[in-house]
């Protein structure tokens, strides 16, 4: 459904952020991308979002090539990026201006209810906590009913409790329409909690190092054996990606120290 075909990006400063990434993601799949800093995860998301043009290769959704922002693709950034001059409700409805007012209001109300923010529609963004603001950002992307939702470390600025509750919110929202989720994260636990598939990336130039399928039942039990097994598999792959890089860079003293 979402196809990356030989996707490459070289920035004007000659940094090769991504080289020849070929991947296929299924409809409704939750795919997590992990990898050391600078291995092109954000770059890949920006290419899929159409915010950046590929140097080579292509992004396709259901056979349609993505070159600029597309109605089927929703984006959730690391920061909420709410528009401070709009109320919470207006922020959520921002992408729905083509809809009749009644339907827009109904969708916004429903969205607020789903993420436990009923009654917050009239507030200004500055009156929200970080977790609340990120919830608003999530539903702002989802009310437009995208087929693909891109998330770039959306929970990294939040504390562990808030993060866990946002995982629940996200999975609940995902269940309703099952868009394909592409999630970039630094948190292996988060990847195992949410994803069906984890892709480990490797830097300089950014490419795929390992592609792991997680066959765990939902809802995931963080204390179960298969959960920690999955975590271990990912950590091992990450370690491998770092070693491969370290060998390439010939600085063996940093091997494994990252974790």
């Amino acid at each position: 459904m979402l196809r990356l075909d030989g996707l490459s990006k070289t920035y004007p400063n000659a940094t090769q952020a991504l080289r020849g990434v070929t991947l296929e993601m299924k409809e409704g799949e939750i795919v997590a991308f992990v990898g050391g800093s600078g291995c092109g995860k954000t770059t890949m998301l920006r290419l899929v979002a159409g915010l950046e043009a590929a140097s080579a290769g292509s992004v396709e959704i259901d056979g349609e090539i993505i070159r600029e922002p597309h109605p089927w693709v929703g984006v959730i950034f690391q920061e909420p990026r709410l528009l401070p001059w709009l109320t919470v409700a207006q922020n959520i409805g921002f992408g729905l201006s083509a809809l009749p007012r009644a339907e827009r209001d109904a969708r916004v109300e429903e969205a607020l209810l789903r993420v436990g923010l009923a009654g917050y529609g009239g507030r200004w963004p500055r009156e929200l906590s970080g977790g609340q603001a990120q919830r608003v950002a999530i539903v702002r992307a989802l009310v437009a009913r995208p087929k693909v939702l891109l998330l770039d470390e959306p929970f990294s600025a939040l504390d562990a409790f808030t993060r866990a509750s946002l995982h629940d919110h996200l999975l609940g929202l995902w269940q309703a329409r099952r868009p394909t989720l592409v999630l970039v994260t630094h948190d292996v636990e988060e990847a195992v909690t949410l994803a069906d598939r984890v892709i480990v990336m490797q830097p300089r130039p950014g490419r795929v190092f390992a592609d792991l399928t997680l066959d765990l039942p939902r809802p995931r039990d963080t204390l179960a054996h298969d959960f920690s097994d999955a975590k271990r598999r990912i950590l091992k792959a990450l370690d491998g990606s770092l070693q491969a890089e370290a060998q390439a860079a010939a600085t063996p003293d940093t091997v494994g120290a990252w974790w």
Partner: protein
Amino acid sequence: MSLAVASSSEAPRARRGAVGWALGLIVPATLALAYEAAFRAGAVQGRLLPPPSVVLATLWSLARSGELATHALATLARVGLGFVFGAGAGVLVGALTGASATARKLLDPTLQALRAVPSLAWVPLFILWFGIFESSKIALIAVGVFFPVYLGVMGAIAGVDRKIVEVGRVFRLGRAELARRILLPAILPDAVIALRSGLGLGFMFVVAAEIMGASEGLGYLLVDGQQLGKADQIAAAIIAFAVLGKLCDAALVIATRPLLRWRDSHARAEEA
């Protein structure tokens, strides 16, 4: 909901504003009273600087005869027209150079060079071009208003956060929509500040314009008072200028406040 939030923060803010006002009045009121007392006690003559009671009496008689209103309105009309032209041009050109790097490279150096010209140096040229009546005065005021507005709007547009603009791109806003739904609200706080400094300069320049030669206006009262040695009339005109300027600024702030309700209360408290 939004109403409840707004009004709950409005009341204490108004009270804090009133206290701030009262504090600000202490120093000038004390000075005025001290001077008045010194005059009454015969310690100062008060010919060069008349005591507050005399100035107030002059102001009162000017107001009663209707002269004050005539002069204030004449000044206000000049500032108003000059402000409309200067601020209008400043917003347009500032938006252009702020949004387009090409336009900035093309226009900004010239405008910066013109800005370096002390504005009163334009006076002879404007008189030559527009005559000694209203047009040259309004042109001078417009020039004074233009530059702060231009600089403020250009800086605000160029400085809009790329991250916020990206939100607009993700939702596929076209150029016009991006300008209306993202850029305009984003620059509004800075634009209001730019307009306020423009208005302030407008009042500076109206004095210069009216001193150059006018048959009415608060600036005329100044010149007239000087020529006839009426220090009380000069002082009265100065006070009228101060009050008029402050009122216009306050009107601008109040008119734009509904548009800026979303801002952090910290920023709003600082402004008060």
